[in-house]
């Protein structure tokens, strides 16, 4: 049998935001099973079976720290997660103390700018996709006024503030930037009633949880809102279809790779395997499929990185490998210099999607550097 290579996950897989972490974990587990089934992963001159060690932090920063300690104890040096800002920030001292590289799905810049150096952003941040989306909408759809709405929690509020700044920088008029809702809201009509009254051209759902997105869309539309709706996070088409149906047509969000126009065969097989293993695919995994491959590919490029994160950090600067999930010859590499002053972000293609009748269609593809 092959030796085991443990990769960790610390993130949220229960509670109202369970979908975020679950899509991470399942992507990793699908890939690990796939690799192990096909003989393991060859790094240097050894072949490894991949084992995913998971920890549910329940969105609690204290528990996230606990999880990171557990990962350190298990001798793990590469961890995917946490999924929220505060958890990602809270684990930083532990990761640094124990030589762990981690891949948060959270946007605070302090995590990725020096002196921080152990966190690698696993997706496109809202301050990267937001301006691109707003610019596109301003130019192509004539958007002039924007309203923001966010849950009164850390992530959404930070993302809203980022969004507001970006919109203002583009010369858009921000007509609402203070509306918030409790995260346990199930019926958004009262929240949206005043905003819809302002009739903005674009309604941005900042940092919206996948569970809330369809409800917000549906309420807004039923109240007669006719403008555009967008968000800067990844969503799942099935969830939106069930929750809002055709009312969600035209909804704009950020995705990764699975739209038919760009998905490679490997991506398609990944989706198949995922579906077989867990019964149902989650489109959020389009962005979350990358992290594990980045870890493994970087190790392949520099086998010494397997238990030495300094080697890993060295490799980051030059690393490049083909992106197996997207058609054509796009590359996996580390980016982020513009935003963070160092390469601390994986280069997930910035695919801006438009929802249409139960599936996402690619609106445009951008990139981050």
């Amino acid at each position: 049998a092959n030796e085991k290579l443990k990769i960790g996950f610390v993130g949220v897989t229960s509670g109202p935001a369970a979908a975020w972490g679950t899509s991470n974990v399942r992507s990793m587990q699908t890939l690990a099973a796939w690799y192990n089934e096909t003989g393991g992963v060859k790094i240097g001159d050894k072949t490894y079976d991949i084992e995913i060690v998971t920890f549910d932090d329940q969105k609690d920063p204290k528990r996230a720290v606990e999880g990171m300690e557990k990962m350190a104890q298990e001798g793990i040096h590469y961890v995917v997660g946490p999924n929220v800002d505060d958890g990602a920030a809270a684990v930083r001292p532990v990761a640094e103390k124990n030589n762990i590289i981690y891949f948060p799905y959270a946007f605070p810049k302090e995590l990725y700018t020096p002196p921080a150096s152990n966190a690698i952003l696993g997706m496109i941040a809202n301050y990267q996709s937001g301006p691109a989306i707003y610019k596109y909408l301003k130019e192509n759809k004539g958007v002039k006024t924007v309203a923001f709405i966010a849950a009164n929690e850390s992530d959404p509020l930070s993302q809203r503030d980022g969004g507001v700044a970006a919109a203002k920088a583009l010369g858009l008029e921000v007509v609402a930037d203070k509306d918030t809702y409790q995260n346990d809201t199930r019926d958004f009509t009262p929240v949206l009633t005043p905003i819809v009254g302002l009739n903005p051209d674009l309604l941005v759902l900042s940092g919206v949880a996948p569970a809330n997105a369809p409800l917000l869309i549906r309420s807004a539309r039923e109240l007669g809102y006719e403008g555009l709706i967008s968000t800067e996070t990844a969503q799942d088409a099935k969830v939106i279809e069930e929750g809002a149906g055709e009312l969600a047509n035209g909804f704009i969000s950020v995705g990764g790779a699975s739209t038919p126009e760009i998905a490679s065969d490997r991506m398609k097989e990944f989706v198949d395997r995922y579906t077989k293993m867990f019964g149902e695919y989650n489109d959020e995994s389009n962005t979350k499929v990358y992290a594990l491959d980045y870890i493994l590919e970087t190790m392949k490029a520099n086998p010494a990185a397997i238990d030495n994160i300094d080697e890993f950090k060295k490799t980051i600067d030059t690393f490049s490998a083909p992106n197996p999930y997207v058609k054509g010859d796009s590359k996996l590499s580390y980016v982020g210099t513009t935003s963070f002053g160092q390469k601390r972000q994986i280069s997930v293609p910035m695919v801006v999607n438009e929802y249409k009748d139960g599936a996402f269609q690619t609106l445009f593809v951008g990139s981050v550097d």
Partner: protein
Amino acid sequence: MEQVIANGLYLGAQYALIALGLTLIFGLMNVLNFAHGQMYVLGGFITYAIYGQLGLPFPVAVVASGISLAVIGGLMERYLFRTVIRRSHREESTMLLAAATAFFFDAVILLIFGEKQRGVPKIVKGVFNDFGVIMPYDRIVVAVLAALMILGFILFMKYSRTGRAMRALAQDRVAAQLMGIKVDRYTMIGFALGAMLAGVVGGLLVSITGVNSGIGGPISVKAFLMIMIGGAGVVGGAIAGGFILGMMESVGLTVLREYGDVTYLVIFAALMIFLAIRPNGLMGKPWG
């Protein structure tokens, strides 16, 4: 403004129905059922499976939700709460049991139904738009159904033999027993009924707000708020509390939106002040 009031009324009807089952169980056995929200979620998922997945008619699904939850509630009372109440020194101990069952339901629901938000096809299409009020027809249907169920529940508690027995039980268990009321059985029926109400609301609302495995806890907390406002253990209080909270959210979110993030801060602070002034809610009696 009309819209704000309509929103409040609609939300209130929905909230009141959620609070009813909780207050019933509390009134009957002094158990603050932390698992109420999870029961609601389970009801939602059952309706989702039957109506959304299997494609059977919506009413069938809602009834199935109600029945399943009634059975679950009955079993919970019989095999968990009854034992613990009988054996524990302080009745608050049931809170831990209730919390543990809440976690248990959370786990089961997550394992069976997954982490995703779920929804079902609309039951009625179209939107009512007149008199300055916009309200989708399905919401109107749900609000009317909720109102009817509340009314039915009140009548049931007031005039039916079972309802009367349960009210007697809530006021004085020993005296009820002396009347020849099978105390154990009616407690179980009461718990089942409370659970059934949770299941039915869950089923009804899945047609509008969908359902997701993680919302049980927050729903419970919200339901607690309602029964505190109105007065715990009192049916009228639950209804009043539901409508008041609905109205407060609706009005608060409109009136206070300029002040931004503080809307809920104000709502919660108002609640605390209100309870400090009226320590037993609107119509409740002291407890404990």
